[in-house]
Structure formats: C-alpha cells, structure tokens
C-alpha cells in the first residue's frame, strides 16, 4: 500500500464519514518499504492538486519522514526538483507493509498485512 493511499481513504464506519476527525486515518506501528519507481516530475505536479496538504503533513510526521513545508508547493516551488523528488519518494515509492490505520473519531483500527489493508468491519460496527 503506497502512502498516497491515505489521501483517499477514511473510516469505513458510516457515522464517521461526516466527522473531520475521521480523516486522515492515523498510521500506527507502520513498517515501511521503499520500492524504486521512475521519477516523473510531471506526474507529481499533476497529483499535487489532489493532495490534502494538512493531512499529508500529519501522515508524513507519523511515518517519521522529515517535516514537509507548511503550505503546498505552488508556482516556483513546483520547479524545485528536490521538493518533487521528496514527494515522489514519500507518496509513490514508500509502501506500508504492516501496521494499523486508526480512525480519530471512533478509534477503530484497520490492520495492514503484507501491504493489504483490511477495511471489513466487525459485525458490531456494520
């Protein structure tokens, strides 16, 4: 599971969808693996508009990455190759192989095993 996935997922419990605390889900006990992927600066520029920057800063911290800038790179900063390379590494090359994703609203944790997160709910939460 690539780190960018966290930008598109939230708690599977219906009642949590409307709570701001359900996004982003929080990584715990995450084991990471780097898988090299060709660096495509244009792709990163095209992905950036999709990224919730505040959420990514939180995730990046939880995974122990160096702090991201306070605001999303725009205009000139988008030509800074190092910035784009750092984002490429974090979003697309970093895989979470084991660990948990926890909802900040209901506290439920979703297990990640061998890179597959399990969002099926136990019967009491369906």
């Amino acid at each position, binding site marked *: 599971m*690539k780190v960018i996935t966290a930008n598109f997922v939230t708690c599977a419990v219906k009642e949590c969808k409307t709570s701001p605390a359900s996004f982003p889900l929080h990584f715990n006990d995450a084991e990471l693996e780097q898988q090299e992927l060709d660096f495509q600066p244009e792709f990163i520029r095209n992905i950036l508009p999709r990224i919730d920057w505040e959420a990514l800063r939180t995730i990046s911290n939880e995974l122990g990455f160096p702090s991201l800038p306070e605001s999303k790179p725009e205009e000139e900063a988008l030509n800074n190759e190092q910035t784009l390379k750092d984002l490429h590494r974090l979003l697309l090359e970093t895989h979470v192989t084991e660990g948990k994703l926890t909802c900040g609203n209901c506290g439920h944790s979703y297990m990640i095993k061998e890179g597959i997160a399990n969002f099926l709910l136990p019967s009491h939460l369906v």
Partner: protein
Amino acid sequence: MLPTPDTSHVSFDTIYEPSEDSYLFLDTLSSASESKWLSERFPKNQEASPLVVEVGTGSGVVLAFTAAQSQQIFGRRDILTLGTDVNRNACIATRKTATTAIQAEQQPSPQSVHISSLTADLCAPLRPGSVDVLLFNPPYVPTEDLPRLPSAAENDPAVSEAMSRSAKFDNDSYFLSLTYAGGADGMETTDRLLDAIPGVLSVRGVAYVLLCKQNRPDTVMERIRGWGGWQVETAGSSGMQAGWEKLVIVRIWREDCS
C-alpha cells in the same frame, strides 16, 4: 486488439476467472467512443491526475488493463488506480496483475501507478468525493439468497491455511458465490453500489457499471435519471450479446462538472 493483462499467477479457487463480462469491460473502455469521452472529460495538461477505482476487482484484469492502457483510454498515462474486494486473495492477485501489466505495456516511463488494493465492502473506506472513474462488474446473477459479507477474520490467511480439505472446499465455494450471486433480480449488491455513487464520485466523476438483462437495465437507467443532476447512457456498443448472456455497461456521470 490491445493485450489482455496476464492473470496466469492467479488461483481461481476463490477468485472469479476473467470471462465474457470482463472482456466486455476491456472492449468498452478502450472503444473509440469511450476513450474519446474520457479523454475529453480528463484532458491532459489541464486536469489533475484521475483516480480510477475498481470495486470488486477479482483477478484485477479490468483495473490492470485500464492502468496499462491509460494512454489509449484516457489519452494520458498519469493515472492512479486503486482496487477494493471483499476477498483478500483477490486484492493480492490484483496488485500483481496491475503492476505486471503496467510494467509490460508502459515502457519506458511515464507510467500509471497502482496505489493499493484494499479489502473492503464496495466503496466503504473511500473518502467522499474522491473517485474520478469508478468501475464495477458486479455479482449480477439473480439468486434466491444473497451471500453475507465475509468478516475480517475470515480473510486471515492463517485461518484458511489451517482448514481441513472439506472446510476449505466450503470456504472456496462461499467466496466464489460472492463473485456472482446478486440476490433478488441480481441487483442487491449493485443497488448498494448505485446508492454510494453520488457520495463517492468527484465533481468530474464517472461510473461504469455492468448489468445483465435480468437486472432490467432500462429500469435501472430510468431510476438514475430520477436522481436529478445525473446522466446515464449505454457505453460503447456494450448492449450486444456477450456469449450466452445479454450484457450492457452503463456510463453514469454528473451532468454539470464545470
């Protein structure tokens, strides 16, 4: 004809083997009319990278094809793909099918990126408003009962490995039933997916959903038009006979995306 992704690594004990309905999906998405529509909806250099999500990926053949043939389908290669399935084995299979197909078809880079396969019920874990293209080849066969959803524990690899031969047979049959059994009119699962579409699609979002004749496609389309603000059309030339089944793929999208 564009190559079909390799699924030779997939064990079809619990996973749906690519069949006429899967191939109809590949042909429809890569048809001249659909690729034109999608390229205009997601114009390169103007619109951010689309997120393509397939629900119930099975072997992953449809999502892998979409990722690998993104240039033909979207006129751009910078797409992200994500798959969900209630069967963990299908998620593992999809990840491999997608990454292999991208490697095989997109040399040198740029390449599409398969971001993850998630074990989940339909769109349950997806962030509202995040999906640009939603693909669904449902369990559409009318059946007396709808199989229940598996629990997280039933997807634990350690549990199935410890099963006796007969328990494994029952377990495999159960997971296979999830791939085709659609309950009343074959629509019970599709109905839940249709209900989720307005919430999960982005403002520019579009969904492709396969229906068989017993699902009463005309009634389904009429119902979608009744949502208000949504359009629905038969995609490509998918109303044709596919093998012994009469299958159709409908395209559902927001009327006003500006």
